[in-house]
């Protein structure tokens, strides 16, 4: 009976989570230019999507920004987590962790606005020395802002893994002749990789969907997808954006099923072996 119950609960919750997504995909095939009244079936919006370079450039910008910022955040975050783990005095440790959580705690508006003012001040300062406009550092400002608010997620997912791992492995590696650097990369990193990857994934998701901070910090020559969609609210969000979201969701969904289908086999195999021993 219990198994049956949990099955229903699961489908209920995921159902509620996915009904809006299904509506979204449903409306992306709407022949009318409306996201509320369904007139007829047509792939007009997909065609429109594929011949508007502006949208795809926005998507490319978003992805480049998301991938780069999550990578940088992961590198700095993992190193920071290792550093924090090794730190001896409690005060420094708690200070750093609370500072790291500030971007997560602050409303996006505040982070965005303060970073914009900061960058403008920086540009003003530098341009007294040699000629520099906000345009030139536009992309980097966005990249820095995204990395900054992705960092907490990386650290919060890597630190517990490092705490769990303890020192035994790295000491064993050093005993076998690794320098401390090699020990970290050869032994510790592979073991905390799940944490690192999930941190990166979290960072990627955050950066992908951010609008507020990008709006304030972004410069004129780097428009990301969320900015494009949000600016449509002057008049009306047209279904071609629905089409784009539908494509992203469906591709990710299919990749998920395929890759899980493969790795699933492996895990099942390992479990049966373990039991037989």
């Amino acid at each position, binding site marked *: 009976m219990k198994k049956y119950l949990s099955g229903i609960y699961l489908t209920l919750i*995921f159902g509620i989570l996915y009904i809006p997504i299904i509506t979204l995909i449903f409306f992306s095939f709407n022949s009318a230019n409306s996201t509320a009244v369904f007139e007829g079936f047509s792939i007009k919006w997909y065609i429109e999507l594929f011949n508007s370079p502006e949208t795809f450039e926005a998507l490319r910008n978003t992805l480049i920004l998301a991938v780069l910022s999550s990578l940088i955040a992961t590198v700095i975050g993992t190193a920071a987590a290792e550093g924090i783990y090794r730190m001896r005095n409690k005060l420094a440790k708690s200070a750093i962790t609370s500072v790291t959580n500030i971007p997560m*705690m602050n409303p*996006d508006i*505040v982070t965005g606005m*303060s*970073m914009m003012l900061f960058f403008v001040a920086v540009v003003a300062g530098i341009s007294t020395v040699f000629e520099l406009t906000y345009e030139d550092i536009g992309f980097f400002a966005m990249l820095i802002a995204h990395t900054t608010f992705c960092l907490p997620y990386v650290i919060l*997912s890597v630190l517990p893994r490092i705490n769990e791992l303890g020192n035994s492995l790295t000491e064993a590696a050093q005993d076998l002749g690794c320098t401390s650097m090699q020990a970290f990369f050869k032994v510790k990193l592979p073991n905390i990789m799940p944490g690192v990857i999930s941190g990166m994934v979290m960072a990627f998701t955050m950066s992908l969907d951010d609008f507020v901070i990008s709006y304030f910090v972004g410069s004129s020559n780097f428009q990301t997808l969320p900015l494009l969609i949000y600016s449509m609210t002057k008049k009306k969000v047209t279904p071609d954006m629905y089409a784009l979201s539908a494509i992203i*969701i469906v591709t990710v969904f299919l990749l998920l099923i395929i890759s899980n289908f493969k790795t699933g086999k492996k895990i099942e195999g390992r479990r049966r072996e373990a039991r037989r021993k």
Partner: protein
Amino acid sequence: MMKKKQSIIHSIAAAPHIFWSVLFIILPLLIVVYYAFTDGEGNFSFENILSLGEYAEIFGLSLELSVIATFVCLIIGYPLAMIIAKSKPKHQKIFLMLLMLPMWTNLLIRTYSIMAIFDDGGILNSLLGTTFHFIGTKGAVIFGMVYDFLPYMVLPIYTCVSKIDKHMWEAASDLGCSPTKVLTKVIIPLSMSGVISGVTMVLVPSISTFYISQKLGGGTFELIGDTIERQFVTGALNVGAAISLVMMILILISLSVMNKFSDSSDGGIIV
């Protein structure tokens, strides 16, 4: 002496992060503090902070809605995390991915679809032939918050529960705990650190959302996020900065109180 030198060398690893956070977290924060304590022309004044009294009610409402939303997230999220943690490893990965997937669509479009479904003339109403009024009420805002932040609640709890040793279940039932007692007496206390980090990850962002409340709340009431957004957009930086500064301090205090209760050092935040 060796041990101490060793730990200093290793904590160098955190140096880039320290440098980064000082430059891009502390300095911008100082700017917020600067604006919070100056009026339009830049000379020092407490006037912004004092004028916060009138926003107390808005802040109260946002706090109330986010507390309710966090509670609903916990009630829905905890069993979900338990079920996922107890399912076969192959399925666990799929369930987690399915949970994270909606976060990849654009927040604005997701909110639009929710409105398209629940609006007075929306899909649900036209299917059922009823015209119950949901969009534009506080209930819709809570639904929006729960819809958007549920994954942040489930992931930390899932991490925590899946780390609990299998024997805990057996030991508890062996000593006479019925299944519900096993949960209340052993499993929930052990997963408390996951619950705390889950609650933090939902409560804090939901206090300062502004988009969900405007669209799903129908604009008939204002949350603190909307106020700050309007302040900043219409150029009244100082009051906006003052509000967010006070809010951040309040959040910091409530977080430290919550951590004191859970007395475990750090819950696994993400899977």
